[in-house]
């Protein structure tokens, strides 16, 4: 029988993978994808709780998160395209112009 804990473990694993990706990968696109992974790990946890508690609140929240994430991806990708046009790179370690 698959219980709540299984969902939560998967969610934690996904979240950790996403975090590691954000912290370790150099390519901004990959970092972005890892961020989405973290968001969806949270979504998974919310959906699992919603099912387990027999309440719809969590699933409604998931819809909101998915919507916001879609908007955010649109803005983020646009920024990245603009950035690439300006600097010819999307590598994180090369984007350090703010450093004194």
């Amino acid at each position, binding site marked *: 029988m698959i219980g709540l804990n299984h969902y939560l473990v998967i969610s934690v694993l996904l979240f950790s993978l996403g975090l590691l990706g954000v912290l370790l990968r150099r390519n901004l696109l990959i970092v972005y994808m890892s961020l989405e992974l973290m968001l969806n790990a949270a979504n998974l946890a919310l959906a699992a709780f919603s099912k387990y508690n027999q309440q719809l609140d969590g699933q409604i929240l998931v819809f909101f998160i998915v919507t916001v994430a879609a908007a955010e991806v649109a803005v983020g990708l646009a920024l990245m395209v603009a950035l690439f046009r300006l600097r010819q790179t999307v590598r*994180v370690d090369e984007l*350090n112009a*703010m*450093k004194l």
Partner: protein
Amino acid sequence: MLCPTRRELSARLSIGAVVAAFWLSFLLWFAADLKQHGATETAFQWFSVDNLVVAFGLRLDRLSELMLLVVTGVAGAIHIYSYSYMAEDRDVPRYFASLSLFTFAMLGIVLANNFVLMFVFWELVGLSSYLLIGFWFERPAAADAGKKAFLANRIGDTGFLLGIILLWSATGSVHFGTIQQLLHEQPKLLGEMSTIIGLLIFCGAVGKSAQFPLHVWLPDAMEGPTPVSALIHAATMVAAGIFMLCRVFFVFLAEPSMPLMLAGLSGISALDVIAAIGMITALLAALMAVQQNDIKRILAYSTLSQLGLMVLAVGCRGPLPAMFHLTTHAFFKALLFLGAGAVIHAMHHEQDIWRMGGLGRKMPVTAAVFLAATLALCGLPPFSGFYSKDAILACVLKQNMVLFLAAVATSVLTAFYMFRLVFVAFAGKPRTSEAGHAHEAPALMLYPMLFLVVPSVLAGFWSVEPYLEPLFSAHAATAVKPWYEQLLAPFDEPLAAFAGLGAAGFGIFAAATLYLGAREDSLPSRWGAFARVLRNRFYIDEIYRVCITLGLDAVAAILDFFDRWILAGVIVRGLHGTVELTGRILRLFQTGNLHTYGFMFGLGVIITLWLALMR
């Protein structure tokens, strides 16, 4: 003032105004119906703050009436004299504007009916004296003398202002009549501050009337034009202090008492201090005058000494003799200065008496009026000075024998240094070619002097005391005597009269033996170091310079330390250093690397969660 380019017009305007004022006060003296205690007051409210109500009020009683006559009379003579004396100066309009402002301010003091208004005019007198002493401001000595006079006065005025404020806080009024009434009804109204108030108000007089220890400005004020010295010494500036003491004499009559802190001094009343200061000033200044060689400086120290006598009289509960002497002194001291001005004019601005000599034959009229004024100053009958000085001596004799002896000693010295001046400058043979070619002063300078001779000689016949007495005591004891009785009145008090006469005679005799026909001053060789101390004015200026320098240096050093180490060091640099150090440390976190920021962010979230959930 109105027309800086037209010298004639400005001079005539000032002279006309002052002479008109003199005639008006003369008419007023005859016409005004001044009841014995009475005072006519006109006032409109000037401003009121909370319960401080200040009126722009004028008070006319016998005291101000007398001063009006003296001030406008002397100032009028001096204005006319200046017309001739200053004719060659290139800044005549400025001179007359300041001179008239001076006279106006003095008249304001005389007529004010409350402390605040009096203080305003008091400051105006200080300002115009600054303008006039430093009139020839191109000369550094004149500019410095102006500053010195202003600063010395400022010290005194600060005390005066504090006294006024204390008096107001104790009585709730600044109006002379009201305060006098209140103090008359409740002598203990001022409480424990009464002596302090008296002393603080006296401070103002110490500054204006150049009493020890603030006397140092007056001799330096000789840097101004000679008519200005005459005005300062006779009618306006220094007279203001004495007049003020007499005007507010009721304050000193309040029950003396000290605050607990100073209980050890409770036996001393303000009047005792005033008498002591007067005595010190009179004696010191007379001693200093003995060894001066500058004709104007001798007169300046003589003024100091006479003012000391007046203050002494006030201190001995005798405002009447003080006012009497103030009146006669105003006339003959103005005359002396105008005479000295004529001499200086004739000698082409030579002021050293040892470079004069034989002037009596060259300028007989000047010499005659100078001699008359000198006799008046020395206190020989029937000249006016005898009567007023005798009044002071008699008043002091009633109070204290020591003070009396000091006053007599002052009289001896007065006669001595004045006749030293007369013998050296006017008698004998000319010592220099300038003295040989001296000429009599022009008519416009002679007439004012001749005008002043009359009151200098005759003012003693009309005794001021019975005229003013109703103002100071409820029952007027002294009857007004006809002039021929007044002539001999001093001899009712034979000790004082003969002491004064003897003192003058002795002084003149000593001066005659030492200086009649002398070629040079023999005192320095006879007295040695003492004469040098006298010549250098007891080194008081030097002592002040050293004390003030040391004091200011100490204060400056402390302030410098505070500024350099506390303000600039700890506060400014400390703040700057802390901020910079914090900034440097925080900068280490700004790597510009997204991974680091992400890691920090994650770490922060973990720590926050741990704090929120595990605790």
